[in-house]
């Protein structure tokens, strides 16, 4: 029964209120991805988790800040800590800095994730190393809200090197890129602070993107995907 349960997890029980919130979010229209940056809202996101294993470790916190019309809207930002049944390992707490008590006092996961979705709307997501953030968020949404999260993402870890191929040879991590543009971080490994630093990186890449004629989300994603294909041939 146990292994079966793991293979076919049953849909989570949502309260009618939660189901209503989810339905309203699902009903939102998706914006066109070819709108220019100057007329769009993007959400830059970063997550903290109990570890680096995307299959086993669980989501602890989401930080996100919006870039609207090419500017970071400080007030349009969010940081959510998900309530944990058990706090993550001690050595991991040292990294993300969210102590056991706060983890247990966080928002119940379903409500936390609904809050995140409501904040996000259907606007495109931007992250650095999308694969990790995407799988942590996808699994959490599947587990706690029972939905398959199909959303537009763009990965700055691929956009940045595509624009600066020469720097890219020795510049990989977010910290390296922040160094290139002299971007600070008020609290590294805090989800919102990392999201903010990523958003600043995104702004700093804008002039070169515009120079290459990339002025909307779709083209930026294409640029990133092309780079990924070139640099990591299958």
């Amino acid at each position, binding site marked *: 029964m146990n292994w079966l349960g793991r293979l076919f997890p049953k849909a989570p029980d949502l309260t009618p209120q939660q189901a209503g919130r989810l339905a309203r979010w699902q009903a939102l229209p998706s914006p066109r991805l070819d709108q220019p940056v100057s007329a769009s809202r993007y959400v830059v996101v970063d997550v903290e988790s109990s570890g680096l294993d995307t299959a086993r470790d669980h989501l602890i916190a989401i930080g996100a800040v919006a870039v609207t019309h090419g*500017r970071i809207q400080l*007030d349009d930002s969010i940081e959510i800590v998900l309530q944990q049944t058990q706090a993550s390992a001690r050595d991991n707490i040292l990294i993300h800095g969210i102590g056991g008590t706060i983890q247990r006092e966080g928002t119940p996961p379903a409500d936390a994730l609904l809050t995140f979705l409501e904040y996000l709307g259907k606007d495109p997501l931007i992250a650095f190393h999308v694969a990790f953030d995407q799988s942590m968020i996808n699994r959490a949404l599947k587990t706690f809200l029972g939905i398959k999260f199909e959303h537009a993402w763009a990965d700055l870890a691929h956009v940045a090197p595509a624009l600066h191929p020469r720097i890219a040879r020795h510049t990989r991590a977010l910290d390296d890129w922040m160094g290139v543009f*002299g971007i600070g971080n*008020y609290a590294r490994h805090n989800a919102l*602070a990392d999201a903010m630093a990523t958003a600043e990186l995104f702004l700093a890449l*804008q002039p070169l993107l515009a120079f290459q004629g990339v002025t909307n989300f779709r083209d930026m994603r294409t640029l990133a995907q092309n780079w990924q294909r070139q640099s990591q041939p299958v």
Partner: protein
Amino acid sequence: MSEATNSLIQATADHLSQFAPFDQMESEHVLWLAQHATLAYFARGEAILSPEQNDPVAFFIIKQGVVQGEQVTGQMPDAPAWLELGEGECFPLGALLASRPVTSVYRAGSDVFCYIVAATDFLHLTKLSAAFHDFCTRRIANLLEHSQHLIQAGYSKASAEQQSMSSSLSAIIRREPVTCSPDDSIKRALQAMQDHGVGAMVAVENRLPMGILTLHDVLSRVVLAGADLDRPVIGVMSTNLATLPPHAPAHEAALAMAKQGIRHVLVTDKGCLVGVVSEKDLFNLQRVGLSRISNAIRHAATLELLKQCAQDIQQLARNMLAQGVAAEQLTQIITTLNDLLTTRIIELELAANPIEDIEFCWLALGSEGRFEQTLNTDQDNGIIFAPKAGQIPAALREVLLPFARRINDALDACGFPLCNGFVMASNPKWCLSLEEWQGTFDNWIYHGAPMDLLHSTIFFDFRPLYGASHLGEALRAWLQQAAPKNTRFLHQLAVNALRNRPPLGVVRDFVTSEGHTVDLKLNGITPFVDAARIFSLAVGGSQTNTLERLREIAVPLRIQKHDIDAYCDAFLFIQLLRLRLHHEQNEQGKPLTNRVDPDTLNTLDRRILKEVFRQARKLQTKLGLDYQV
């Protein structure tokens, strides 16, 4: 979205709070500001704001990077960036407050992140936060106040107990005055002084002070004079009393003591005696007293003693700087003491080698003429004399020159180096009769050759220091008439003055030269001094002091009072920086210079210095407009 503040808003507010004026604002208002800010990025070279922009102007705060302001009006075609702003600084306050477009292009000097706040939110914040409102409307004065606090805090470790020289006399009075009746016997009065342990006895009638007897006077007026101790005390008292109201600041008492060579000042309220302030009260923690120095100068019998006094003047200036005496009072006190020193040197010289029967006046020129001496000042002086009927000026000059030479040498020995340009009374060119001076000045005004213009910047600040002061006054009255008439001359002076630009940087904060320094005198003081002189000559003013000149021209030139105040504050700040610089160089035994490395200033002082240079630019712009340079 954000019902509560999250870590991003908090971090933004914390960052802002490191800088003025946000560090003065209440934290909830800074949070409000952070909540209403967006963050934008500008690549190096990108224009952030320009006069052509149609969008309403927003409020910018630099999070990271350097922003440069460029003047676009056609007055100064090759002008480099006149303004450079760094982390934590904001712009464009003027345009926002006046709801007008900006007059300058603001350009990213490096990659820049700026917080941007909409104009409506900016205005709301000025209403919300008194500190912010204050900052926006009285920017310079505010920064200065802040810096003054820091300076005082820095020095007060050394003199924690000392009251500031700007505190009022009422705060310094420590006891009820010890008084007697004018009719009391000398003996009784002396006994009372002994019993109360005071250095001065004041005779009062219905609380009105009638005379004073100090311990110092007892020797000469009582003992040596062989006074009858049973006689009324009023007979041996000094009745020439120095009085000040209780709200007068301490430095005024210090100045009065220095000027009159006394040790006690009576504090009176509507004529009634409320206290006695002694030199000891003012300087009891100091080794060197102002009136002690001025007395020592007055009574010095040899040049050796005067040299010692000159060193004491430096020490006194140091102490007063440490107590936070403002630059204006401090330079005045230094000038007053230096005047006394010069006077005493002349008196000694005249006693040794009398000059018979020539009416002359020793003139102070340059910074001494302007009452703006700091610690390193070389001498600029001249002589004006009045030949009697039948006397030939050249013959009188022959008599006066050797005399002047000895004075110049004595001043040199006291630490006022001989003037490189030989602007000294011992130079035959600057030892002239009243008529000759007028002829010389007239020539300069008429021809306006480069050397003439240079000379006028030194000589037109003359004032009589010793001797027949009416000669100096007559020359001043003549100049007041002559200068305003020749607008071509004033125009030339303006052209000359505008060659010297405040060094606001293109790449860094400041355009530096010689070992990464700016010259506080040439770049900071001179623009104000020059502009004030030209305007003052134009309106036929009589003042020689730069601040007095600025105050004097306000009405005839219709300059707003708050602009004049800003110029004065800016000028005083530079003077203060200079005094501090000299003080530090003195402490380290280095030669005194006016060069300062901007990197050694704290952030606040660096900002004020920039603001000061900006004010200097503004004054220069007015000069340029008025004289169509």
